[in-house]
């Protein structure tokens, strides 16, 4: 028989205002097993905890029930108290008489009655509690960063600086991500490449960092501290160890008509290519969709001109298996497709472009060598219209746009408008906006400068329709402040397209059993207090995969994620959760119900011999739970038809005892 102590907390007036705490303590005194029952103003305070510790010693308590706030709040606190008093921490049960009682009831008698019932349930459970000891698991001291944009780069550099090896997996042939495509960065207008490429070089030169470019994560197994990851290194048909990046092959490649994705299809590249001059690794890649040699075996020009002998048409995809202690997701974003926005004539006119295309048009390394020229006829545009919130904050058009604010468009549009007016003062620049949202250090000043110093026309209102007519774009919009319709004959229209998570994020989330929101942004463990951790232990979030962000925010989050990873990797052992499931193999049918509902892949099967009558042995398929992977959710215990699956700390019998206590 247990000797149980009951401790009823007032939580100041939080509980005591609606629950007669003395009556609760008195009523629980008579429950089976209870030998001591008391109340106190703040049980979580040092004095309150001392009261518990003293009672444990004085009354030889074997179990504790604390009637207080939610166990999410102070279960850990009281478990530590029990430990300090020499009790097993899992002999503590919390009856939540605050969130589930005093805060939801108004009348004292009702609140008190419910508090007593919740207390009785907790006592009934403690009567069946057994001491539990958590297991330990080792930590693989290596981190994986998925995505090699600025977020992934910063996270990898910070982890590597702390002395831990890091691998970056990047699906493109080079790291750098979206930032590498940008021209200038707000609000200081320094050139994106000038600040990014040194970091890319740092990554390449860091001894602790390996780059798997042109690679994708194929499968993830395991758990925090012990992930096993399969990485597919796609065949680039060029030996990375031999290629010097000289570019001779590219010059000679006869296949010149490949749309250049780095310039968003606004010019062409060869079938063998290096995405941009500062690519890391600076290694050529053959595009198998366009290479004549790979498609029909006729060509081989690049082999002839490669002095290093790096071309290898027979290269195959390679599978790399590696163990990691922590995984950082930094998969980034893509601008949404403009195909569904017919009203803006994106697919009808070459002169309607997205903001990212505008970045390439103004970039010195872009298709026009930095000169702002219309894609259709190469003429200098004299009237430019920028449209903000294309697909953002679009609750009415959910099937084509996004409900959220993409956060970066106000600032980059101001940047585009300002830079255009600065370089080409004869250009008339108009910006249509719903709201201008520029919180951030020096952000609002920046936008005001675009209006006040550079004379950009900001019009509050939305563009309704764009029609190409001749070489002009007829823009029809409304000015909500002047309350009139506006018509502009523009030469170029730039759409600030909403951003969405990269398409690779969803399958990756499934592999990682990390949760996502309805927009496919990764969910953080706590929106305020644990913003860089995923709810799945050992998985961390960096950059726009978690939500729209600008570069400064991305870099700070990347550093935060790195510090969490470092905190994890510097541990030698991780203490597990002892509240895990296990299967009573004598009762297990091996039916696979539990395995199918297990969200963590913790359950496997083995054939096991059982002694039968008359010295026989019966071989049966039975379930085995990996306690290091099990998170104790209990889904399996519900699915198991024979009741063979049970969860330590939340045994079926314990839960039934609680229900019985409540229904009595």
């Amino acid at each position, binding site marked *: 028989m247990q000797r149980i102590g009951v401790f009823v907390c007032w939580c100041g007036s939080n509980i005591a205002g609606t629950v007669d705490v003395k009556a609760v303590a008195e009523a629980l005194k008579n429950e089976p097993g209870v030998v001591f029952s008391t109340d106190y103003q703040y049980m979580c305070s040092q004095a309150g905890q001392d009261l518990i510790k003293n009672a444990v010693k004085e009354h030889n308590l074997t179990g504790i029930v604390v009637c207080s706030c939610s166990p999410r709040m102070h279960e850990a606190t009281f478990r530590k108290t029990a430990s300090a008093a020499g009790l097993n921490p899992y002999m503590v049960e919390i009856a939540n008489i605050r969130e589930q009682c005093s805060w939801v009831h108004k009348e004292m008698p009702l609140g008190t009655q419910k508090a007593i019932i919740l207390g009785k349930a907790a006592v009934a459970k403690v009567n069946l509690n057994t001491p539990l000891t958590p297991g330990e698991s080792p930590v693989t001291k290596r981190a994986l960063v998925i995505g090699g944009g600025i977020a992934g780069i910063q996270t990898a550099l910070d982890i590597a600086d702390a002395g831990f090896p890091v691998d970056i997996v990047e699906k493109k042939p080079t790291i750098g991500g979206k930032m590498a495509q940008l021209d200038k960065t707000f609000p200081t207008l320094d050139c994106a490449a000038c600040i990014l490429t040194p970091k890319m070089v740092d990554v390449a030169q860091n001894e602790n960092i390996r780059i798997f470019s042109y690679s994708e994560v194929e499968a993830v197994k395991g758990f925090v501290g012990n992930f096993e990851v399969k990485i597919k290194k796609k065949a680039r048909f060029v030996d990375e160890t031999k290629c010097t990046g000289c570019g001779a092959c590219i010059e000679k490649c006869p296949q010149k008509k490949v749309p250049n994705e780095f310039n968003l299809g606004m010019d062409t590249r060869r079938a063998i290519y290096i995405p941009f001059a500062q690519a890391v690794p600076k290694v050529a890649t053959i595009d198998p969709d366009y290479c004549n040699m790979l498609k029909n075996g006729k060509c081989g020009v690049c082999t002839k001109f490669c002095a290093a002998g790096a071309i290898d048409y027979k290269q195959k995809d390679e599978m790399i298996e590696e163990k990691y202690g922590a995984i950082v997701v930094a998969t980034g974003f893509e601008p949404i497709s403009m195909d569904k926005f017919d009203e803006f004539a994106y697919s009808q006119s070459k002169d309607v472009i997205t903001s990212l295309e505008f970045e390439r048009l103004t970039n010195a390394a872009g298709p026009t060598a930095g000169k702002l020229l219309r894609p259709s006829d190469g003429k200098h545009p004299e009237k430019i219209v920028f449209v903000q919130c294309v697909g953002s904050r679009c609750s009415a058009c959910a099937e084509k746009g996004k409900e959220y604010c993409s956060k970066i468009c106000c600032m980059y549009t101001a940047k585009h408008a300002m830079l255009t007016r600065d370089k080409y003062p004869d250009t008339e620049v108009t910006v249509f906006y719903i709201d201008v949202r520029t919180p951030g250090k020096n952000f609002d000043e920046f936008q005001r400068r675009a209006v006040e110093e550079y004379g950009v026309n900001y019009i509050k209102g939305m563009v309704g329709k764009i029609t190409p007519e001749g070489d002009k774009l007829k823009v029809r919009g409304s000015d909500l402040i002047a309350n009139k319709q506006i018509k502009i004959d523009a030469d170029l229209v730039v759409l600030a397209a909403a951003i969405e998570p990269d398409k690779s994020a969803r399958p990756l989330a499934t592999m990682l059993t990390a949760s996502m929101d309805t927009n496919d942004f990764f969910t953080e463990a706590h929106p305020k207090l644990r913003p860089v951790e995923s709810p799945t232990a050992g998985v961390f979030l960096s950059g726009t995969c978690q939500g729209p962000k600008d570069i400064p925010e991305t870099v700070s989050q990347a550093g935060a994620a790195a510090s969490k990873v470092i905190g994890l990797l510097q541990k030698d052992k991780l203490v597990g959760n002892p509240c895990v499931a296990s299967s009573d193999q*004598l009762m297990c*049918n091996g039916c696979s119900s539990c395995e199918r*509902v297990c969200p963590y892949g913790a359950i496997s099967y083995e054939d096991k*011999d059982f002694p039968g009558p008359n010295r026989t042995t019966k*071989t049966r398929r039975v379930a085995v739970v990996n306690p290091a992977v099990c998170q104790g959710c209990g889904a399996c215990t519900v699915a198991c038809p024979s009741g063979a699956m049970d969860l330590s700390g939340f045994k079926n019998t314990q839960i039934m005892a609680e229900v019985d206590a409540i229904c009595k």
Partner: protein
Amino acid sequence: MQKITTEQLIEKAAELMNEGKVASVLGWEKGEFGYDVTPGIFGSVDELKAKFVYGDFSAANLSKYLVKKTEMVQGQALVFLKTERKILIFLKPCDSYSFNQLLTEHRFDREKVYAVGVQCDGMVDIEKVKKIAGDGLLSVDTSGNDVVVKTLYNGDMKIAKADVLAERCVNCKSKKHVAYDELLGETGEVIDSNRFDEVERIEKMTPDERFAFWQNELSKCIRCNACRDACPACTCEKCVFDNPKSGVENKSPANSFEEKLFHIIRAYHVAGRCTDCGECSRVCPQNIPLHLLNRKFIKDINEFYGDYQAGAEVGSRAPLVDYTVNDVEPGEVFDRGDENA
């Protein structure tokens, strides 16, 4: 009458036995009366000739017996491990669904079984015959579409087979064999039956009426466990009702509510796994329409998650043990419960 005859099945079984392909046969065994057919296991052609029968009363679903009959037991002289020979099972269309469901749950080894699909033309419910012919049945035989009954008190009579067809055959869900190695006779199609009509009728009752309905039905229960023992979904190594650890073991109904719990717990345990073979109601000596509980679950699952037939294929992921992003929100399930309250 069945198009496929007892003789055809014996011939097929004998052929497989003589070829050495199978060591024993799971089939139907003659009883004292023509309608008194039970599952049987036959070890030789002579036994088959003496006792095997296939007819309008060969209703038993044999799939479940494979669990014990294909067990991997070592140590004693056991036929299975010593020979490569398999066990032959005859499967009517509805039995084949249970067969697949058991395979999905890894309950027997497919390698050890040779399955012969048998055309089924519907089974006769002896209780319905008794209702018409009264007591003192001397013999019940079928010829063509008629059931010929001889009775002690009411003389001889012919009843149309359609009038005494078992409920599950009236509402037959499928004439299609979903599993077999070989087929005798024809296999048909999945049928768009009216099997949920009765469930709908009960759903439309007020909570009080519904409670009274089940109170009346379930109070007849004598806890003989026949429904559980015949159910092909109830193959647990240790049933919770036999397990002292479960807290519901051999619990006698202390009040009128508890007597319902056995059947309700059982319905929950087979939810999503029940193929609607109807064995529970067929074997119930008290004629409780137990299949309606299971059908209610099937109907709800179909409505919430899209049509799902347990056992239609091996390895299918039943909606209750699977998650897809399109799954119905718990709130919607709750709201619908309110509507029916």
